[in-house]
């Protein structure tokens, strides 16, 4: 096991870590297979997401992608979503976890490390419907 490179989320103009994989269902449904470039990225891609507000509603968008079709071949959003260079992630429902602050506990696997704060964004069909922050403490 190796700690996994996180996704990135641009929220309020600031880029933060995103320890959730909103692209999973889309890749599964479309049957797109990606290759892992290293043990730190088993899923084979790193996406940059952005919460954009429009008409009073915040939505989740995929704005950049670096995906390995093979070890050498790296593709972007328009290769995975033909005709689009950014996409609205309407297929995603769930909670996004964005760890912030100091690293309290490093865990050598997945997204299991603990940071000072976790910002949770609840998403329903790509729309932000709720958010909350959790203050974490280091394990003694």
């Amino acid at each position, binding site marked *: 096991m190796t700690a996994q490179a996180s996704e990135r989320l641009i929220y309020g103009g600031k880029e933060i870590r995103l320890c*959730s*994989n*909103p692209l*999973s*269902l*889309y890749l*599964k*449904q*479309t*049957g797109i297979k990606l290759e892992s470039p290293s043990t730190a990225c088993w899923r084979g891609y790193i996406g940059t997401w952005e919460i*954009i507000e*429009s*008409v009073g509603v915040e*939505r989740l*968008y995929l704005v950049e992608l670096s995906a390995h079709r093979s070890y050498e071949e790296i593709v972007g959003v328009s290769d995975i*979503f033909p*005709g*689009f260079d*950014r*996409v*609205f992630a*309407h*297929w995603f*429902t*769930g*909670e996004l976890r964005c760890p912030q602050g100091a690293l309290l506990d490093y865990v050598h696997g997945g997204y299991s490390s603990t940071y000072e704060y976790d910002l949770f964004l609840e998403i329903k*069909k*790509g729309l932000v419907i709720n958010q909350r922050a959790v203050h974490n403490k280091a394990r003694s």
Partner: protein
Amino acid sequence: MSIHWSDWITWLYAYLGVGLMTALTFYGFSLKDRPTQFVRDMRSALGLGKTLKDHLQDIFVYSIAMVVICVGWPGFLVWAALKKREDRMRELEEDKPTFICKPEFLVRTVSLLEAEQANHVHDPLGLVPKVPFGHLNGPWGKFLAEFGFEDGDELWYFEVPKGESSGEYDMFDGPICGYAKVVKGKVCGEFVIEAGE
């Protein structure tokens, strides 16, 4: 030289002859499962090759098996046929698709038109195709093409509660929802549109 079919010994020879043919056939099949020369060489190199004792043991076991088959070949053929049938049934069971949508998760029947109308995705920035299911329109079309819909087939909306995901969707914590093709109360295909993490 003529064959005296009225003589019991002739019938015994014929019986054993068929048994011998059966035994040789099964011996031939068993040779197919032998490790390749490469594997045998590798095992030898690792000091795991067969010893003289192993060879003698093989000869003894095969000889006993041949005699048993020669004598009891009708029973052996019945056993082999039953085993083949059982293996085939197991293969069919393993190949059967497993769906995350169980009958208890079916919520309501919908028409194709209703499903498509309910899943038009609106985005003020226009970053989604203007087709049913948006970016998932391709997989939706594939679902319809793969499973087809005939008279009597039903389309159901389903919801899998949080914590009930399984199989190929076990990485999603749930809830999971989508549409299922149902024929005579049995789920025959499914299309997931939401899978919570």
